[in-house]
């Protein structure tokens, strides 16, 4: 190896004149300035890449692939279980929806207030959903009429299974202001 050879030469000739000795010393470090800087920049690039990779990993770490959250699609009994002209609260706790049946059929309202996400309460006497946080009010249809809520409550997809049971899919939402309430899937004709 060149390193070994150099060491040997330096040990063999200890009595070389001073200028030559200086040259030797300079040659002995087998890394000159230019090489040092190219290695240094390579080192920095590697370090930055590794650090960047780690921080990317760290960011991704906070977005898990599997979520242990309540299911978004569920069976909600048969249409006859729901009374015409009433807001049904049976799925409010578990799935966060109100089932409303009117003369034409059934629709599913989200319990999330469109203002800032609180859960309004159904007030049967006043026939409205009233949000306890900032006072937004919604009609039985989900249309907002008082308070700071900027748009109506959202509706979810409702359909019938082959056995006649209602299936609700919360991943599909329908917004009135986008004209989506005319979509046949947002409403179950009974």
């Amino acid at each position, binding site marked *: 190896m060149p390193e070994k050879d150099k060491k040997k030469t330096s040990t063999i000739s200890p009595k070389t004149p001073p200028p030559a000795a200086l040259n030797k010393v300079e040659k002995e470090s087998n890394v000159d300035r230019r090489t040092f800087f190219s290695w240094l920049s390579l080192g920095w690039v590697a370090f930055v890449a590794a650090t960047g990779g780690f921080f990317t990993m760290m960011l991704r770490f906070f*977005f898990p692939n599997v*979520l242990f*959250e309540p299911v978004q699609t569920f069976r909600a009994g048969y249409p006859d279980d729901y009374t015409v002209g009433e807001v049904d609260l049976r799925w409010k706790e578990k799935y966060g929806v109100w089932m409303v049946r009117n003369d034409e059929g059934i629709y599913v309202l989200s319990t999330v207030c469109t203002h800032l996400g609180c859960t309004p309460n159904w007030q049967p006497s006043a026939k409205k959903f009233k949000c306890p946080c900032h006072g937004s009010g919604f009609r039985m249809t989900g249309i907002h009429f008082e308070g700071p809520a900027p748009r109506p409550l959202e509706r979810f997809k409702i359909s019938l299974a082959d056995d006649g049971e209602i299936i609700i899919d919360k991943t599909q939402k329908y917004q009135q202001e986008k004209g989506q309430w005319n979509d046949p899937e947002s409403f179950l004709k009974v």
Partner: protein
Amino acid sequence: MSDKKNIFEKIAEGQIWKSIFRGGGAPKTRRQRMMVVLNSVFLHLHPVRLPKHAVKLKFTWCMGGLSFFIFLILTISGILLMFYYRPTIEYAYTDIMDLTEQVPFGIMREIHRWGAHAMVIAVWLHMFRVFMTGSYKPPREFNWSVGVILLVLTLLLSFTGYLLPWDQLAIWAIAVGSNMAGATPFLGAEGPGSSLLAIGDINFITKASDARFGLIGGRFLGEATLLRFYVLHCIGLPFIIMIFMAVHFWRIRKDGGISTPV
């Protein structure tokens, strides 16, 4: 003075004292006293000498010092609370009830809560004083910026701590707060420009990948949210705020101490 040394001098010149406190023995001159401060890891953050005006309550309101003092109270009471509190949906609320009603000196929980309010007020008043006395001006403008970061960290600590009792107030406050994160431009699913970050039909910013999701660890507030906020509240944010506090205190000294009344 005779050669007779009193007990304090004997201790100060013994090996134990000398090994702990750099500088060698009891300080006798002004310079030695100064070196005691400079050589101590804790004291060196503080100015060696205080000008008279710096302790004038009318000028400083002592709000910076009080903020730090309240922070210490919050740290100690917070660590004590951790011995009882479990950050799960099943136990969080009942553990707080247990602390409030059954645990001896469970008043620690109230101290922590009121201390948190007090710290926000103290930090705010501190900034108000610094602003009104013009103490943010050069060469202190960097330390003002550090102070702004400390204010944000104080508010984030309050925000994350607010969820931990897991009562109605907590959940709805965080529901509102995290929905705001969902409205972040570009990075929130409900925010403006979120649909721009997409390749064809594949949208990268959805309810399951946006800023709100990263904050609460899910699409809905739940177990993951509580754990995330707990870790941030007890480890993450205090760690960061302590680094910034150390810089903040050190810079006061380096920028020439507390500013002088005009």
